[in-house]
């Protein structure tokens, strides 16, 4: 039995995989799409209209670095004309004041600016390029402009002790929201996992600090913290449920249920150049595969939490167990939880706190 498709709420538009950063935890797939395969302005604009007609409310422009697209201002205008709320997720790197003003004039509602660290040195280490100083310049420009701002700090073992300095950057900016999101272990982050997973002691310190900060900033700045699910008791409701809220479009037009879905073997992804967004959302094999609750294995099928977490993350299940339809092994009830316990134990072993310079695997740039 297939479940009826719910209404998609947000379109995640991966405009390009090109990026001036080379982050060691990049969420892009290991196999990056080439520039020659990227969709045109016209095709993207049609996708925005189809998305709005299907019920989508918000578009997240992401990448790679969306600013690498010379037509980004036109794309923002097209999305806004389609009736969408327009969010730009950016490193802030290829940006100057004139382009920022053009983006805002075209209808940009919200900017999510990513930070790799609190200092020049650490930010540049994790991004594999000089990026930090430019981000601080962008924050200055934003102070005098009417656009919503969220700062997104990407957190892991080697910068989690910088939270107070990170928060200080946020508090002196015009941000209404600050997110401290621990790296999720897919894509490049999975390759660098042993250098990225925080220790339990680090995590406890950070949770305590952010709880206090949240209290202090209530009503002024919204503070959000995403803990690594390896330390969780239950899995996250990945993407709010497979094919339930989000549709992600890769640079070449492939429609995916999440950022990492292409790692799941045997799944076929339809392309928006060939079929309409509504048709793909409602009927395609990839979106149907893990939609709803009917496909759930035990112990999920008889679990009270199944409507809350939908069995967790399919990509994580595949990466850790080799079976995309298994219960997410971060769940304490999952038969294969010992696999996660082993990784957590290694991260908390005797060598865990030593800060030997890791040999990072940097994400390259596609041609």
């Amino acid at each position: 039995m297939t479940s009826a498709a719910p209404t998609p709420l947000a379109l995640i538009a991966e405009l390009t995989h090109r990026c001036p950063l080379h982050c060691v935890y990049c969420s892009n797939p290991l196999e990056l799409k080439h520039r020659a395969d990227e969709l045109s302005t016209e095709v993207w604009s049609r996708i925005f209209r189809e998305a709005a007609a299907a019920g989508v409310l918000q578009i997240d422009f992401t990448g790679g670095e969306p600013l690498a697209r010379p037509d980004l201002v036109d794309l923002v205008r097209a999305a806004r004309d389609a009736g969408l709320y327009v969010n730009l997720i950016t490193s802030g790197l290829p940006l100057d004041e004139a382009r920022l003003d053009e983006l805002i004039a075209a209808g940009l509602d919200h900017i999510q600016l990513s930070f790799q660290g609190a200092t020049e040195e650490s930010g540049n280490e994790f991004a594999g390029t000089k990026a930090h100083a430019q981000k601080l310049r962008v924050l200055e420009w934003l102070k005098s402009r009417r656009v919503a701002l969220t700062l997104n700090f990407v957190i892991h073992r080697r910068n989690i002790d910088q939270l107070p300095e990170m928060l200080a950057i946020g508090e002196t900016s015009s941000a209404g929201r600050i997110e401290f999101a621990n790296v999720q272990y897919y894509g490049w982050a999975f390759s660098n996992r042993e250098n990225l997973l925080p220790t339990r002691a680090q995590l406890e310190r950070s949770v305590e600090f952010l709880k206090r900060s949240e209290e202090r900033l209530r009503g002024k700045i919204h503070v959000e913290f995403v803990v690594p699910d390896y330390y969780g008791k239950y899995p996250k409701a990945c993407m709010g449920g497979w094919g339930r809220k989000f549709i992600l479009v890769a640079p070449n037009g492939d429609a995916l249920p999440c950022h990492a879905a292409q790692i799941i073997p045997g799944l076929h992804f339809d392309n928006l150049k060939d079929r309409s967004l509504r048709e793909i959302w409602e009927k395609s094999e990839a979106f149907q595969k893990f939609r709803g609750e009917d496909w759930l294995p035990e112990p999920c099928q008889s679990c009270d939490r199944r409507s809350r977490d939908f069995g967790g993350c399919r990509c994580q299940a595949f990466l850790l167990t080799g079976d995309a339809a298994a219960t997410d092994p971060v769940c304490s009830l999952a038969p294969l939880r010992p696999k996660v316990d082993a990784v957590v134990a290694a991260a908390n072993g005797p060598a865990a706190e030593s800060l030997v310079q890791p040999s990072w695997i940097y994400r390259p740039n596609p041609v």
Partner: protein
Amino acid sequence: MSAPELSSRPRLAVGCRLNEKNQPMRVLHMPEKALRLSGPSLEIVERCDGRRTVQEIISELQEIYAKAEPKKVVDDILGYLARLHDERALDFVSDEANRSAGAK
């Protein structure tokens, strides 16, 4: 939650806006979420334009919902405005701030 002054003028905060009138469902867009609006909630948010005072919004809604108990309309509006403010969707512009902005 703190109730707004009757003389303040609620205005949608930066990054928050109503979607277009021609859309099938009216929503208040906010960074990272959207609120479905219909009936009184839509009537209230449409009036948070930075020009009307809270008192004016109340009077206009009491007219629209003339059959409802006036006190209940007041409480509902004040509660809803306070909730939107807590969610950082609304700024309450005080008369003083308006005057000094106008004087510039």
